[in-house]
């Protein structure tokens, strides 16, 4: 039986009727038509491309029941750019060529954003840990690390550190 849940996605309030066996990933893609969040490994938590930020934390949306998103705040890749301006992480991914096919990018950007939101000037190790759960099959890991280190350096300067 469907149940009505309220949640916020990318700042917008939603009320959605969901079946309890649906995951956040399925509701985002199929009900809310936010298809920026990808499914890679078949919903098994092995690839990280379905990563969204829920209440400030990066999670695999394939492993969270929609019922557990009740009254939560979710950020998907569609909500990262503001006023048609890319987020610094997205811009850095372009500048450093950290995107090829782009399938892992939404999840990776959100994993990185969850880190930067808490820690504007992370170390290389902190960056690596934050994005270690996001598999990439074509660009590789060096370019996205470089991109994120550049963001860290930029934000570190702006933060006066």
């Amino acid at each position, binding site marked *: 039986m469907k149940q009505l849940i309220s949640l916020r996605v990318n700042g917008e309030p939603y009320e959605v009727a969901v079946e309890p*066996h649906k995951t956040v990933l399925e509701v985002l893609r199929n009900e809310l038509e936010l298809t920026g969040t990808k499914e890679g490994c078949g919903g098994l*938590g092995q690839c990280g491309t379905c990563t969204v930020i829920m209440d400030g*934390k990066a999670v*695999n949306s394939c492993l969270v029941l929609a*019922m557990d998103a009740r009254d939560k705040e979710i950020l998907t890749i569609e909500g990262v750019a503001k006023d048609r301006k890319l987020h610094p992480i997205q811009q850095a991914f372009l500048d450093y060529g950290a995107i090829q096919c782009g399938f892992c990018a939404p999840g990776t950007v959100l*994993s990185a954003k969850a880190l930067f939101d808490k820690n504007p000037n992370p170390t290389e190790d902190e960056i690596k840990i934050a994005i270690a759960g996001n598999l990439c099959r074509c660009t590789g890991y060096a370019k996205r690390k470089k991109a994120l280190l550049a963001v860290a350096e930029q934000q570190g300067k702006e933060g006066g550190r």
Partner: protein
Amino acid sequence: MGGRLKKFEYFEPGTIEEAVSLFAQYRKEAKLLAGGTDLLVLLKQRLLSARYLVNIKRTSGLDYINSDDGEGLKIGALTTLSTIETSAVVREKFSILAQAASKVASLQIRNIGSIGGNICQDPRCWYYNQSHDWHRAWTPCYKLGGHVCYVDKGDKGCQKRILQSDTAPALIALGARVKVIGEGRERVIPVKDFFKKVGNVLKADEILTEIQIPNQPPHASGAYLRFSPRKAIDYPVVGIAVMMRMDPEYSLCRDIKIVFGAVTPVPFEIDEAEDLLRGKKIDSDIIDGVVQTVRDKVALQAISFGDHSADFKTDMTGVLVKRAIEECLKSAKSH
């Protein structure tokens, strides 16, 4: 591909008592969702089925870390692994547990997965934990209703699935216990006795609700190390937890626990290696003896997992025990 969840009847009990009574009623047809990172995968792969799903994520009284000078540390079973790895008190006083929690899977999974679930996770093997389509290419194993074990052709049943928990060996090394609540009763079990030949001792109506860790004596230090093909996402192929207590001058080893995870179906403590170290000054000769003893004991019992043969795992236990003891000595000296 993994697939979708099948429909189930869904419950969100408000209290632990309500949750327990659901399990008392529905027994094995009901499945417990805590973090969900293990259960949802098993359900999607059709390795488990749930006619009833009992979601305890919003059940009160399961998510906390309480530290007490007298009683030690109490952790609610629903506490996420990322909360544990970043907890100031865990990092400071029980660092081996923070180390173990921080090595599980990926940050996204640690943000969801619970400590209770990490202990109660389903034991795995390279054949069983695959998709339905993958299984169809083979004659089914005992666990899937057939008459063969692909891990050990000599076996007459499913006895070689392995608990690949990172936190369980660390908790055993810390002397931790778990609180278990069933219909009208409650028991506290040392983590080292929580497991049986394959799997754990939980009865159908029981829920693991709390982890209790005694305060550690002065001059104690611990290390959790693991080998896995990739640092992230993979389960451990070999995990090792070592807790060491030195004398006040940091010259003699007063006490030590050496517990391996993922090598055998359940965590494996090697008393003979501990005996070699207890009361001794630790030098390279002693460590060499420990490595040999560990390898000899592990060689008799190690179980292969896919590409990782029992011999390879035996080699890794020797490497890791040496590193873990050295880590303990290093962090003891830095105190």
